[in-house]
């Protein structure tokens, strides 16, 4: 009975954290695009200072995500169900999709979409101190192969996801801050080229 108690509490807390996150997160209505500004800090073991990149992302649920880095180096990545592409001179060049990149894209998309509950079967979920956010959860992969790539993913948010920290198994970690969340009409948010990318690919 006593041994079962902590497990019961863990499950209860997990469900509670999850439920709280799900309740507070706003969902992206159908046909709308989520536009978010991001600042990413890549902390690599081999360097003392993090690599900082700034840009915007546009997420069209069920279609794909456009990751537009402006600094330090302009670069646009497009991720759809068909793969990961790099924009160069107006064309999309396919990049090999690995399980890690697919996984992170899927998770980020679902979390940003507000579809929290359906994306977490592969994780152990734990409540963590929420700092300034309303809620915070830590996801630990269950699967051995995923564990070889990722240690944990920490997600913080209020009505929107504001911070995601991806801890990789080699000790590197990415801190991605999201702000200026905007829900916009597709036609307003995306130019014709971007619409072409997300619908053709």
């Amino acid at each position, binding site marked *: 009975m006593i041994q079962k108690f902590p497990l019961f509490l863990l499950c209860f807390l997990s469900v509670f954290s999850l439920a709280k996150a799900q309740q507070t997160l706003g969902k992206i209505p159908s046909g709308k695009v989520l536009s978010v500004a991001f600042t990413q800090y890549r902390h690599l073991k081999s360097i003392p200072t993090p690599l900082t990149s700034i840009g915007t992302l546009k997420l069209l649920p069920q279609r794909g995500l456009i990751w537009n880095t402006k600094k*330090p180096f302009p670069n646009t990545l497009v991720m759809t169900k068909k793969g990961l592409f790099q924009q160069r001179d107006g064309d999309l060049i396919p990049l090999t999709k690995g399980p890690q990149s697919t996984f992170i894209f899927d998770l980020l998309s679902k979390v940003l979409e507000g579809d929290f509950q359906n994306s977490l079967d592969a994780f152990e979920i734990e409540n963590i101190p929420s700092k300034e956010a309303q809620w915070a959860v830590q996801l630990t992969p269950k699967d051995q192969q995923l564990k070889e790539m990722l240690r944990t993913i920490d997600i913080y948010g209020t009505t929107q996801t504001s911070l995601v920290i991806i801890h990789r198994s080699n000790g590197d970690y990415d801190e991605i801050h999201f702000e200026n969340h905007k829900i916009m009409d597709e036609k307003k948010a995306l130019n014709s080229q971007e619409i072409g990318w997300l619908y053709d690919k």
Partner: protein
Amino acid sequence: MTSKYLPFLRFFWLLALLSLGTIAFKNNSIQFDLLALLPDSKTEKMSRVKSFMEDAGFSKQVVILLGHPHQDKAQQALQKLRHSIQETELPLREKEAKKTQQEIKDFFQALYPYHAFFLSQKDRYLLQKNQEDEIVERALQELTSPFGTLGAPNLKSDPFFLFPRYVLALQTQNSLEMDLETGDAFIKDQGQFWYIYHAHLDQPLFSLKLQEKLSNTLTPLIDSLDVETLKTGAIFYAAAGASQAKNEISAFGGVSALLIIVLLLFVFRSLAPLGFALLVITSGLVGGVSFASLIFGSLHILALVFGASLIGVCVDYALHYYCAHLHVKRTSDFSVLKSLIPALPLGVLSSCIGYGLLTLVPFPGIQQMATLAASGLLSAFITVVLWGPTLLKKPPQGPPVFAQKIQDTLDGFAKISLNRTVLTIAILVPSFVGIHTLTFDDNVRHFQSLNQELKSQEHQIQTKMHLTQSPTFFTVSAANLEDLLQQEEKIIDQLDRLKISYQSLTTLVPSQKRQLENQRLIQDNLVIPHLKTLFKTLKIPPLKTSGAIPPVLEKVPQLPKIWRSLLSQEKNNFHGRILIPTPQNSDDLYKIAAQYDNVIYSDPPQEYSALFMEYRILMMKVIFAVFSIIILFLSLFKGPKAAFKITIPVLFSLLLTLSIFSFMGIALTLFHIMGLLLVLCIGIDYALFLYWRKKAPHTKDCCLLANAMAALTTLFSFGMLALSNTAAVQGFGLSVFMGIILSFVMTTLYLGRK
């Protein structure tokens, strides 16, 4: 005197046949290897093909795809299949995707310490052309996005991700994904999840037992799964082929036997000719196979099949003997035999001499076939001579009414007044036109007649998995590894210029010379001009890269199983293979190989096709040689005029058969030519019997009846093969069918009138 010794000779002959047959049966071994048909001088290229097929294990692979819109259902079906195969103890060993992945991982980990010397082909090209911007941009993109595809950054020792780019370039562009929970490989295609069962056989492919076990066990197992299934593997084709062959043997064999029995009973109103014919054919087969086995030790299956078919000529001896037995007045036990002299012994002798001389041809396959056929015909003849007088002793009261009617009708046909010159021109003109437009087909793929349902499944699997059929390849030989790799690099540089994709050892492990070139390219074209700018763009202080550069990689680490066919070592020689998965133009590839003494280009289907072409041409020469020998022999025996009279109708029948094929657009194959050889031997016998029958104009005979019966029995047996679904057998049967009809007609028209 002769009659006194006849029983002894008869008994001795029977004993000899039984003894020979028993010895040959006990020592029997049949070869299936096509290489065994060739003389040694032809075997090097074919040895390379055979060696590659064994190393790559193509023929033993089994691939089964299990598809369902729900991933878990497809995965469960795979588990069920796996479990069922283990329970039924089928000789299948599964290739685990996890194990393959681990081998590949271990291989690249062994290479990593030498990563300073490794460049993918594309990166090498970019650096040589001073187009390194693409590499720099990609590095920046990797470092500034969370969706890395080149693995963890290593800014100290590989800031431009060159080693991951090299590794990625080597992995086959396929659509395979891995189930993270179970480690199983699967494909997502058009809304279905296809889980893959990939195994290889533990037993020889052509084992009939295995094929039976497969048909009775594995196929129903696959069909019982509640998912969509696709399967491919040589074993399925072999089983389908064996099943088709069995069905055809039963169908054709049954129908042939029935037709022949009905024909002989209907015409002769007796089982005696059938029994006698069976005895003669059996003794021919036993004698021929026994003698050939004792001479050669083991026989090749093709020599056995075609040699045995040539023995089918001997049914003519039995039928002619029986027809002579119907009308010859008995003055002694040998009266019937005397009436068939010299036609019968000449027929046997000419065929035996023709085949006998073929044994001088330096192709083991031809030698075996010729020995088998010659000794078989001789055995059949001896049986007719020794057993005919005993078994067919009682003279009947003339031929049965229906038999006589056939003879009379054919006599009437033979008497049709035809201007021989006009007839000859009418035959020769279209024949020459036809022969000039003859086409040939030696493509081994066209002989295969593969099961269409299996072909369709194979195509679907290849499309989904981006697999290729058995590739063509270069074999490169050298005394040491460095020379081998440098030689391969010369070839792949040419392949790159021709934009031909390939897989080779040197793309996994470059030569030491190239490794040093790569290192220089990286330093001069990438690190020195761009590294500081990279750090500046990222706004981080430059890192001190590790100073010491390790020595070059000298030995190849343990290759994963999927790449082991790329390298082999024999005594002191290294052999590398460069695989060309989708060959477009073999001419360019042959030209590349021709530039080097130690390089051979092999296109397996083309090599087999070339082998078939060689045999086809050889068989055409054999027919010409046999025909010439028969003319020579008859000229010596009876003079040139008689020789031409006897052989011209047969020649015309062969020419007409060829021209009919040409007009029908049928491309000739080795198997059509083999059929024509049988037609030649049978046609000569028809002509010989008719020619010598002419010398007794007032004597009644049933020679035309005998020829007609011989022709019909041949049509009912060999001719029915024209209906086979197997291209090779169909070709043989069609040749015999048309050739025999024309032989009978031509010999009757030219030699049938008394």
